[in-house]
């Protein structure tokens, strides 16, 4: 039995403890930051297959604040804490050369992790909003961490878009509170199924879902992502692309649709069409990019499209595919961003044209890039193949072969854009390839290599998690979504 508030208390406490103790000694923030994220990783692995509700202060559900742990929260907790541990390991050496002020970095980083942990555990609409804002504010600040002109510009764009999203969410929460007189998610759901559906509820639904879709960067709302993700320091890009858009965007959208408002055919169609549009649109723009990290950021939009398509299908197989792709995407996208970070660390540029022949000088990074590129484009032994395959299979089984067709097209375009990355940076040469600079390149240090190796191994073997399909590790997650509104109410309010 894991004490749920620990997931929120430990990162928030350490976020303020680190700047207090480590003004003088240089290595303290590194050690403390890594220990904290490691403890959180262990704790999150201990929540596997647990399900319970924690009442803060002992107050019972509709009146007090609750933290809810179920299959979906557990999956997201493991993703958040695994990727954050990898990112902190990577940042020890990465920040040394490129940035100053490590203690502020770790402080903001832990605030972001704590906010996300709170978001996925919260069973209360307003608390959800507060935790989301904590995580968002920390990520706005981290995007602008380098204080270059382009970073500030990206951060300002992200700030404006993110804040409009948050205000839409707050407005919708106020409307829902006015309608139902409750803030507890299960209680709101219970009241909503007992009163007739009217325009006010529909309006609140549209506002809250658009607010969270801004955070998850589906296509009409995607404008901030390709600027914000490349501008941040690389470990933060890995966190933003691998975790933040999932915990603050996708998770909350899924939770609200399946457990609060109820899943209807109309919502299913909206999710599928938005998913397919972002799938194709994101990858088409990605093919044209020459900035390595910007290319990866456009792929995040495209891969989130796959997740929404899978979940929008609404069948157990589709949900399995969507969630498995969510998990896989967090692994290979953070690995790709960390690789881009170590390439930038050695070469000093993100322009694909100026790279070349890295496989001779940086063998491990190159091999990790190869594995993650093959994963994201869905080549068989790697994890990306299995999740995309399940999504396509689910689309065909649900009688929507056109969706499956677009998913295959998206996958082929992804492969083409990543073969461009491999050709120009690793196995071939770019046009402005500089021989003298290339001679001086060497492999990055051990602490940067370790997370790359761990994530590569996970990329190769996490296809095995699928063993047993619906009875395996993903079954509690699918049960949460399939159970729908009624089961969630029973679980939280304890019928």
């Amino acid at each position, binding site marked *: 039995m894991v004490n749920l508030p620990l997931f929120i208390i430990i990162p928030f406490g350490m976020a303020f403890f680190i700047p207090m103790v480590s003004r003088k000694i240089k290595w303290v923030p590194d050690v403390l930051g890594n220990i904290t994220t490691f403890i959180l990783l262990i704790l999150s692995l201990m929540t596997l297959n647990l399900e319970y509700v924690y009442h803060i202060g002992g107050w019972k559900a509709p009146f007090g604040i609750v933290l809810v742990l179920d299959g979906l929260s557990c999956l997201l907790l493991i993703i958040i804490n695994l990727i954050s541990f990898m990112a902190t390991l990577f940042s020890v050496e990465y920040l040394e050369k490129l940035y100053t002020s490590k203690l502020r970095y770790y402080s903001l980083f832990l605030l972001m992790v704590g906010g996300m942990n709170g978001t996925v555990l919260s069973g209360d609409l307003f608390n959800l909003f507060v935790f989301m804002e904590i995580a968002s504010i920390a990520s706005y600040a981290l995007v602008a961490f380098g204080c270059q002109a*382009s970073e500030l510009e990206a951060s300002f764009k992200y700030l404006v878009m993110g804040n409009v999203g948050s205000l839409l969410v707050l407005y919708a929460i*106020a409307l829902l509170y006015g309608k139902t007189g409750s803030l507890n998610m299960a209680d709101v759901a219970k009241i909503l199924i007992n009163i007739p559906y009217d325009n006010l509820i529909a309006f609140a639904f549209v506002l809250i879902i658009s607010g969270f879709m801004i955070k998850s960067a589906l296509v009409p709302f995607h404008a901030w992502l390709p600027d914000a993700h490349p501008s941040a320091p690389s470990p933060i890009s890995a966190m933003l692309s691998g975790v933040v858009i999932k915990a603050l965007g996708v998770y909350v959208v899924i939770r609200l649709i399946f457990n609060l408002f109820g899943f209807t055919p109309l919502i299913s169609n909206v999710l599928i069409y938005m998913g397919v549009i972002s799938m194709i649109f994101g990858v088409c723009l990605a093919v044209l990019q020459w900035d390595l990290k910007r290319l990866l950021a456009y792929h995040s939009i495209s891969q989130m499209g796959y997740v929404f398509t899978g979940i929008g299908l609404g069948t157990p197989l589709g949900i399995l595919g969507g969630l498995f792709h969510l998990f896989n995407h967090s692994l290979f996208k953070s690995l790709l961003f960390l690789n881009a970070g170590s390439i930038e660390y050695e070469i000093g540029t993100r322009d694909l044209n100026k790279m070349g022949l890295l496989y001779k000088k940086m063998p491990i990074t190159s091999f990790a890039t190869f594995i993650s590129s093959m994963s994201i484009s869905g080549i068989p032994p790697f994890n990306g193949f299995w999740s995309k395959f399940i999504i396509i299979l689910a689309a065909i089984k649900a009688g929507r072969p056109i969706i499956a067709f677009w998913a295959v097209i998206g996958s082929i375009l992804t492969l083409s854009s990543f073969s461009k990355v491999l050709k120009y940076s690793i196995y071939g040469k770019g046009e402005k390839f500089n021989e003298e600079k290339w001679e001086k390149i060497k492999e990055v240090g051990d602490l940067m290599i370790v997370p790359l190796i761990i994530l590569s191994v996970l990329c190769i073997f996490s296809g095995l998690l699928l063993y047993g399909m619906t009875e395996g590790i993903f079954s509690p997650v699918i049960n949460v979504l399939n159970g729908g509104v009624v089961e969630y109410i029973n679980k939280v309010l304890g019928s």
Partner: protein
Amino acid sequence: MIYYLCFVLFLIGLYGVCCKKNIVKIILGLWIMEYSVNLFLILLGYRKDGIPPILKPNTDISQFTQKAVDPLPQAMVLTSIVIGLGVLALMVTVAIRLYQRYGTFDITEMRKLKG
């Protein structure tokens, strides 16, 4: 009626965010939106001739529940104002730094990122 006016205020703020080119005006637009949401929350808890929601000894409970205002929106507004202050501070800081780098507040002249 007053709720509709609140939403109109929200839309005015949104117009400012979408159509203005000066960074400071964009921040002001966001602030009008924030205020309209806070106002809406307060109005939800408003009750004509209401009394403060503090239960004193020997008060009649049924009369109290009929007259007292709803305390929860007020608590929520306090939290939301504090969050808003944090975002505003960060936003103004970024705006000042942007002014130092570009020498202008015009958003159309900040074009380092595109594609």
